[in-house]
């Protein structure tokens, strides 16, 4: 499925002009929105603002920081999920659409463990130990889910046309989502109450940050660090990189490709499990469809950062999270769009289109094996 790359100097067709037009329109919306925002910050009765957005108030510094922190902490979770997409895409060259469901299973198992611990009275008394235990359970569940998925649904399809495993993964995602609905009921499940020291706000570098968000950011950083160590400094990580580079040559070098692929799924699943628990602690509830949108957005983050590039995935997640939190208020509101908070998801998807149109290899470059580069 190699796409024809238009070489420089070849004939520009109608579609190229159209694509250029879309790029220009999208970029000018961004630039114009930023301009309107900045002007509005200085003077919210300026001629432009009074014309297109008469009740503009602008954002206070605290609001802006609050949005940024929210965006960053959500983005950190997108990043953690994106790692799974990115690694699997790097190794197998296909989008594991069901990875969002792996994340959801992590959040769900976290809900079950934490409520059981809460019922036993341990959640309040030994909070840190309980959270640690929940994280371990979530990692186990998510890892198992990812590995089973690989074994049952994807391994038999290795080597088939590219879209076949993608369609299968859509089916897997659909199945897991609805299996959770029929087993555990369709309603939202609430996590137990968090201790006060976690819900309080702390002031760090003039930023007022809730404890949960600090926890999310720290946990994401720790997970990312250990993943980096695993991939770059251990032998298994080296094998993973080799398989991602060229599966056949790696096999010739004596690397067990199947085992490495399973490891890749497992590590991706573990990251998604951590993200699931963090999601539960941050938003305090989980439903069966929790995995769908964050899953797609995490894929977007992986593309934004450059597929196959682990640092890129994390950076992409953080940028996507902050763009999603800030763009509606910073770009769209000054342009006179009302009800901007409804458009958050649309902003994320538009960002995906924008990145693919302007820099298809992502902000930090793709790391893919020869066949998958396009």
């Amino acid at each position, binding site marked *: *499925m*190699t*796409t*024809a790359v238009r070489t420089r100097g070849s004939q520009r*067709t109608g*579609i190229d002009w*159209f*694509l250029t037009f*879309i790029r220009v329109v999208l970029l000018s919306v961004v630039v114009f929105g930023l301009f309107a925002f900045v002007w509005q910050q200085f003077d919210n009765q300026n001629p432009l603002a009074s014309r297109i957005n008469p009740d503009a108030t602008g954002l206070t510094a605290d609001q802006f920081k609050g949005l940024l922190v929210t965006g960053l902490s959500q983005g950190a979770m997108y990043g953690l999920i994106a790692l799974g997409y990115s690694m699997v895409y790097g190794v197998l060259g296909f*989008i594991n659409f069901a990875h969002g469901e792996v994340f959801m299973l992590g959040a769900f198992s976290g809900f*079950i463990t934490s*409520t*059981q611990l809460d*019922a036993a009275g341990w959640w309040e008394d030994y909070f840190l130990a309980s959270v640690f235990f929940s994280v371990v359970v979530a990692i186990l569940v998510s890892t198992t889910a990812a590995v089973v998925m690989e074994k049952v*649904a994807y391994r*038999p*399809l290795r080597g*088939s*046309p*590219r*879209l*076949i495993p*993608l*369609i*299968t993964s*859509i*089916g*897997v*995602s*659909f*199945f*897991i*989502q*609805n*299996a959770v*609905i*029929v*087993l*555990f*009921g369709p309603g939202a499940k609430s996590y137990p109450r968090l201790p006060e020291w976690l819900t309080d706000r702390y002031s760090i570098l003039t930023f007022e940050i809730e404890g949960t968000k600090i926890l999310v950011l720290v946990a994401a950083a720790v997970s990312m660090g250990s993943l980096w160590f695993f991939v770059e400094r251990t032998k298994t990580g080296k094998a993973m990189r080799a398989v991602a580079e060229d599966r056949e040559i790696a096999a010739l070098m004596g690397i067990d490709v199947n085992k490495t692929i399973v490891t890749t799924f497992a590590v991706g699943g573990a990251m998604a499990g951590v993200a699931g628990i963090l999601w539960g602690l941050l938003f305090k509830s989980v439903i069966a469809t929790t995995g*769908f949108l964050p899953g*797609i957005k995490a*894929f*977007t983050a992986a*593309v934004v950062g450059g597929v196959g590039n682990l640092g890129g995935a994390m950076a992409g997640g953080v940028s996507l999270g902050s763009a999603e939190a800030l763009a509606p208020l910073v770009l769209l509101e000054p342009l006179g*769009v*009302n*009800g901007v908070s*409804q*458009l958050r*998801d*649309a902003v*994320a*998807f*538009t960002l*995906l*289109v924008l990145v*693919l149109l302007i820099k*298809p290899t992502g902000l930090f470059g793709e790391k893919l094996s020869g066949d998958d580069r*396009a």
Partner: protein
Amino acid sequence: MSDITTQVDDTIDTIEELTRGAFDLNWNRVLRFGNLLGLALVFIALSGMPVGLDEREIVDGVISLGYLALLTFPPILGWTVGKEIVLEGMSATKRGARDVVAGAFVGALGGLWMSILVLLVDNFNLRDPLVNWSPALLTLMTFSRSTGFGLVSWIILPGVLGAAGASLHLLTPRLRRAVMAMVLTVISVSIFQSLIDDLVGGIGESIADPGRLSEFFGEGDTPRPRVDSVFDGLIDFIYAQRGGLTVAGAIALALVAGALSLAGRGRIAKAKASYNAKTGPERTRQTAIMIAVSTVLLIVLPFFTGRITQDLLANVGIFLLLALGLNIVVGLAGILDLGYVAFFAVGSYSIAILTVTDPPKSWPDWLPTLDGQFGWLLALLITVVIAGVVGLFIGAPVIRMRGDYLAIVTLGFGEIIRILLLSDWLGGYFNAAQGITNIPGADFGPLGEAKGINPRSIFYLVLVFAAISIYVSWRLEHSRLGRAWMAVREDESVAEAMGINTVNVKLMAFVVGAVLASFAGAVVSAKVGSVFPTSFLILVSIIILVVVIVGGMGNILGVLAGSFVLIGVLGGPRQPGLLAEFSEYKLLIYGALLVWMMLQRPEGLIPNVRRSRELHQDEFLQDAWLKGEVDPDDDHEGPATEVAPA
């Protein structure tokens, strides 16, 4: 495909067969299948399916749909465990007691899981996370008797069923077909109860009182007075009072089906082969006769059926329209468009806004006022144009992307369109979450009006659009454009080297798909009379995808079969099917079906010949090579049998 399988079957007879002892089993395989069965049974039990479906009887007093959901699995896995792939030139194992023993072990092992579940449900309460962990489940699992009875019977019953499934291996293919026909007839006659009851009753009433038919040309909404149908006796014999078949009816049906299958002796297959063998004008004539007969049958059908059946068929037709469109995009051009529902939404909203008499509250001044001044047909024309343009706009940015990126980006577009329709920002145009209501029906002037309160008119509307779409799909598939689509699907670089403008060809697929989806949107607006953003979730795209894939990508007949079987029986995202009780579980089943089809039969139930050859290229080459028909280094053209034997 079929000629190759028969080839393999022939060789089995000629090669000396191995005989092995009854307990000389492949224990690993037995254990794996048994545990798989156990997992499936426990999952189904905990999903609440058996309890929820227990109300619906299959055979009155013998088995309900709930038990059927559990008990179909032991025979199937008992059969599968004995399946063997016989390689060319290898000896096949002789079928014998060994297979039955394996089936029994698989069934019993799976049943053991259920026995353990019975014990657990009896002694622990896990209702907190698992919502279906209830006394009702225990009652069902113990067959309303003591726990001990449940424990023992859950080992014996699946064991026996597994053995029964496995013993099918011992029968001759003809007998096996007869047994399958018996089982399937009983189950499907029971599942199709409301449809058969309605249809047979309607025909019977018309025979009893032929004058009734003439009344129907008038207003269709007047309820018909009940007349004694001539088939009342038959219906009462087959179906029990509280739903499901009577025992006598089930036995009679099974006997009739078995006898027909034995008497038929593969006549259907022969007729099909002779039809396929024909060429030229004779084949055209036969095709024309078949199409004419089915058209006449479909036109007269609503005279004999009630509103519910007509409504059901209209829903099937709407999803058929959508599936035909997606079939062009995914099946022919090989573009995985996951945001297909966007075009459906665009079609529904466009025609709604163009025909509605009271436009959205804050309809902007700079747009022409809308008060339904367009006729329905003109509005449809504009809708088609809008859908085509949206197809171009969504298609253009994604057309050069990798196939899998394209899938996610189109999914994103599908969500963007839904979010925009739902947003307050564009609420002036689309009424946000309130949606657009009071949409008038499709007005065809002297021919009458098709609207929701008259399901028969909607049925005909759907029929006309389905006919148009099928014709368009069929002509396109065999046109220059259709061949270009298939070339792009199979290898884009080669297609480009052959002089195909791949970008334009793919864009055309998007546009044609969008137009067919807008037809469905127009029909839905006329049928339901209102549109809401919540009707256009990604879920809809995925269900249409399942319909296309299960039916057979790239094959119109396959898509037809897929929509009838899936939408008709299980139902659409919101529309009930014949198994209305399944509504809670249908999405689960859709997901499972999608995975299962991709793993076992990616070409679908009724495959497109070229597509399935593409998916099984290795096997085709291997078979041909084994028969010495091709040089392995040479890519061969056409099916293996067309090559002259060496």
